[in-house]
């Protein structure tokens, strides 16, 4: 699926919650609970995403020209948000991730309850994912 298709799918899922704030947050946390477990050894200072109020760890690997992320957070809501980003970007090419335009946040009313401090953290997570994509893109170009 393309980045937009996945985002549209997410928007559709959240629309079922009818703007109920509490249900929305519960749903986000539920998504976080389903995130594949990150190894404790990967939760290093280096893998912490700078700029988040909560602790967020993010690692990535490249396989066959596709990028795969593993992430975790010490708070459940943020972990849910990480899981949404991973769902969108996982298995995409570095190029697609770098060009990827994220619009689902507005459509699921996320700004309304994430708050400015968390929003900045969210931007930091996206930036970190794009940095990984950029690194892989450079790596792949060198191999060619």
């Amino acid at each position, binding site marked *: 699926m393309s980045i937009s298709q996945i985002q549209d799918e997410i928007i559709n899922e959240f629309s079922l919650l009818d703007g109920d704030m509490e249900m929305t947050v519960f749903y986000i946390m539920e998504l976080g609970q389903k995130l594949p477990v990150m190894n404790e050894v990967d939760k290093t200072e280096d893998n912490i995403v700078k700029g988040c109020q909560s602790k967020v760890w993010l690692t990535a690997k490249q396989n066959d020209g596709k990028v795969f992320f593993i992430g975790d957070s010490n708070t459940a809501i*943020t972990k849910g948000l990480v899981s949404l980003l991973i769902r969108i970007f996982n298995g995409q090419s570095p190029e697609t991730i770098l060009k990827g335009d994220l619009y689902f946040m507005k459509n699921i009313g996320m700004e309304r309850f994430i708050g400015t401090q968390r929003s900045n953290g969210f931007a930091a997570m996206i930036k970190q994912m794009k940095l990984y994509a950029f690194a892989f893109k450079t790596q792949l170009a060198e191999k060619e």
Partner: protein
Amino acid sequence: MNTTTAIDIRKIREQFPVLHQKVNGKPLIYFDNAATNQKPKQVINALVNYYQGYNANIHRGIHTLAEKATRAYEETRHSMQKFINAKNVEEVIFTRGVTESINLVASSYGRTFLNAGDEVIISELEHHSNIVPWQIICEEKKSILKVIPVTEVGEIDLDAYRKLLSSKTKIVAVNHASNSLGTINPIKEIIKLAHEVGAVILIDGAQAAAHLEIDVQDLDCDFYCISSHKMYGPTGAGILYGKKELLEKMPPYMSGGEMIRDVTFAKTSYNDLPYKFEAGTPNIADVIALNEAINFINTLGKEQIAEHESELLAYASEKLAAIPGLKLIGTAKEKVAVQSFIIEGIHHFDIGQMLDTRGIAVRTGDHCTQPLMDRLGIEGTVRASFSIYNTKSEIDEMIEGLKRIVNFMKP
């Protein structure tokens, strides 16, 4: 006695416009009063009336508006003098709040009277604003900062304090009540002990002003600091109370207009107290409106306020403690209406965010007391702090919200 018969909370709530709104589709429940409490109409109207009716620069103008504004501004000083029972009106210095008041004392008194090897004592319960100014001045003067430990329940260890005191102690600075835990400190005893070794003592009264009786003469404290916005007044205003004989010995903290008597390029002489410490155009509007906040508290009476808030605290603490996995943080015997807590396995940010979806405003984090959190071995807490306009049914709503979170997280 049941406080609901003594004061009509519904009537009080009517005076607070901000309370009558929905947040995330639910009626706002405001439990972040220790951070800043809400403002009654009288305070808001005083701001509007000043700007609409008599905005003018004070003290030097001779026209009618300037006179009116000056009178209103100075009236607040007189009200504040009575509010804390200061002996002299010029002992009340307007600042931006407790942070500025402490910085003023640390910079002016500290820089003048501290020497290498002298000691300053604070406690583990302090807000960063009563830690950092002392760290800075101690570093500058090569003085030593000593810290009174707190016990498991969050009370100052008086025995340890006695042991820290010596002829080297020059300044002691502690809060009247803790912002993170609510502990009311035995400041009368702490002040007496400081004086026995010849030290001066500063009390951070940020969390006390809206709740506890303050009598600076009876306490015999040397400095007492208050923030307006934590006592129903506007932000950006507050006071430093200081004993006249100390303030007179202290050099100005900031300089400019208002604080001078005569200026020549050769020499400047300073104005009398309190103006020596009030350089520049002050925060006229907010100070004037602060008078209405004082009136609001005086009209209700601190005893009644404390009675209602204590009842809320006792009710909340009991209900909170019954939630599985919840641990109360800060269970001192004497407390203002602040209850911190953590829930095992659930991050405080998540709890705060979840409560917000139900329109409930609480504080989460370290509450600007990182050393205290370190001492307690925790990263932060959820803090619910209550005010005169809060009700038991609001607490029930919070408890309900917390139960839902616990059930969701641990099915």
